[in-house]
């Protein structure tokens, strides 16, 4: 479980996130929706500690992110999987080496065990016969899948996905959505997904938070979203 309380974040004098309080439960696809530039990526990166919040607190279970030492943070991060907006696969490594990279650092498995686990993850996301390709030889959808495979390589408790289906065709993006939703339920992960894709909001959104100009304006589930009263949300949905 992740709990965010009164989170503020600004860059220089520009406030980006203002007073965000939200709770993410395990086994659910928690969604953060909002227009481009509303602060979704900044929220995600603050949640995982890549940006320091100005004020407010972030709780992972019973641990406070702000009071963690460097080593504790490192330990926590090994329990987090992250899919970046542009996949962020390592250019210097092949697909299978990309997935084995976190294992090299965080486990003492033998090479055979690592390859086995990497193959399992790749199988899970339906990427086959591309073990020895480099990321730039893959299509966008494949890169996302490999990104997901790398994120789940260490069996994380928390999974963060930044716009997992931006730039993909509707078919591939629904496949990716299903995949994330399945994995979440299967391993009871706490999943947080940034998106502005209406389709994924409707199909896999269990708990949805709407962000507009850095403020959390509405929270609810996919059933309630069409009858929401919040004017900004209605505007956002109509634009879609």
């Amino acid at each position, binding site marked *: 479980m992740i709990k965010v309380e009164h989170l503020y974040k600004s860059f220089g004098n520009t406030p980006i996130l203002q007073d965000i309080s939200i709770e993410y439960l395990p086994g659910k696809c928690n969604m953060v929706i909002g227009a481009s530039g509303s602060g979704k990526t900044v929220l995600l990166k603050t949640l995982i500690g890549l940006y320091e919040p100005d004020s407010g607190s972030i709780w992972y279970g019973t641990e406070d992110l702000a009071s963690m030492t460097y080593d504790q943070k490192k330990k926590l991060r090994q329990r987090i999987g*992250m899919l970046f907006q542009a996949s962020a696969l390592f250019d210097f490594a092949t697909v299978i080496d990309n997935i084995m990279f976190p294992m090299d650092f965080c486990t003492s498995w033998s090479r055979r065990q690592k390859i086995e686990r990497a193959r399992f993850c790749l199988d899970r996301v339906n990427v086959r016969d591309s073990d020895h390709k480099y990321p730039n030889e893959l299509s966008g959808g494949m890169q996302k899948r490999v990104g997901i495979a790398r994120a789940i390589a260490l069996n994380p408790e928390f999974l963060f996905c930044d716009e997992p289906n931006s730039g993909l065709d509707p078919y591939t993006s629904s496949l990716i959505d299903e995949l994330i939703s399945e994995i979440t339920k299967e391993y009871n992960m706490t999943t947080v997904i940034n998106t502005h894709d209406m389709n994924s909001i409707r199909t896999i959104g269990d708990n949805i938070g709407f962000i507009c100009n850095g403020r959390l304006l509405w929270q609810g589930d996919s059933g309630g979203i069409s009858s929401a009263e919040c004017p900004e949300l209605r505007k956002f949905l109509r634009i879609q």
Partner: protein
Amino acid sequence: MWRATRRFSIFVCSEQGISMIKEFIESVGRYCLFLKMVFRKPEKWRIFWRQLLVESEKLILSSVLLVCVISLFIGGVLVIQIASNIENPFIDRMNVGYMLREILILEFCSTIVALILAGKMGSNISSEIGSMRITDQIDAMDMMGVNSAGFLVLPKIVSATLLSPLLMLLSLAFGLLGGWVVVSLTGIIGPNQYIEGIKYCYNGFYVIYSGFKMALFCFLISSIASFKGYYAKGGSLGVGTASTQAIVTISILILLFDLIVTQLMLY
């Protein structure tokens, strides 16, 4: 002189001057913090050694050809220039070899070669790390609980610093070889005179001094280029800016440290 000093002090006290000084001190501080991050104990020594090999190949081995070719030609050119400048019959022709050796050891093989490597190694390092930064690959590493600065930068700094004196020796050998080729092809001086000159008044400390300078310069090159790349921002344009800034900073610092080290070690 007085006027210039006054103008300088007025500039320093102006708002612009103060903010420039502040910025400078800030970036020195950030550079030190960056180095602290880089020199944390590697998570896995096995991975560190593997990366060290990769980086040595990429930074040092791939520079060998460039250094050899440049040294060969400069050695040849210097011999002709020196010989044509001491036509005086009272000066022993052997001095051509002697002077060439001193120029190569004292300045060319370390400082000039380092300036050339600043372009090659510096742009390689800063653009590689910078593009990893802007495509979130560094964030991805941090998110796995990996010390990205340690993993990416430490092997580069270690291999550049420890192995670069070998490049300096190589440059010296090829510079002397270049001189010898020219001497034996053109016969400006006798080959024996040339060899005698090269051996004349040999001071081993100069080689140590030069090797030390080279190691220092390559430390500057690898660490500053990594630093600029690591904090690159603003897309691919930002990567370009970062590597330009890195090379300019490195070149100035190399010249500055050349002066300081020479004063300290030779005077």
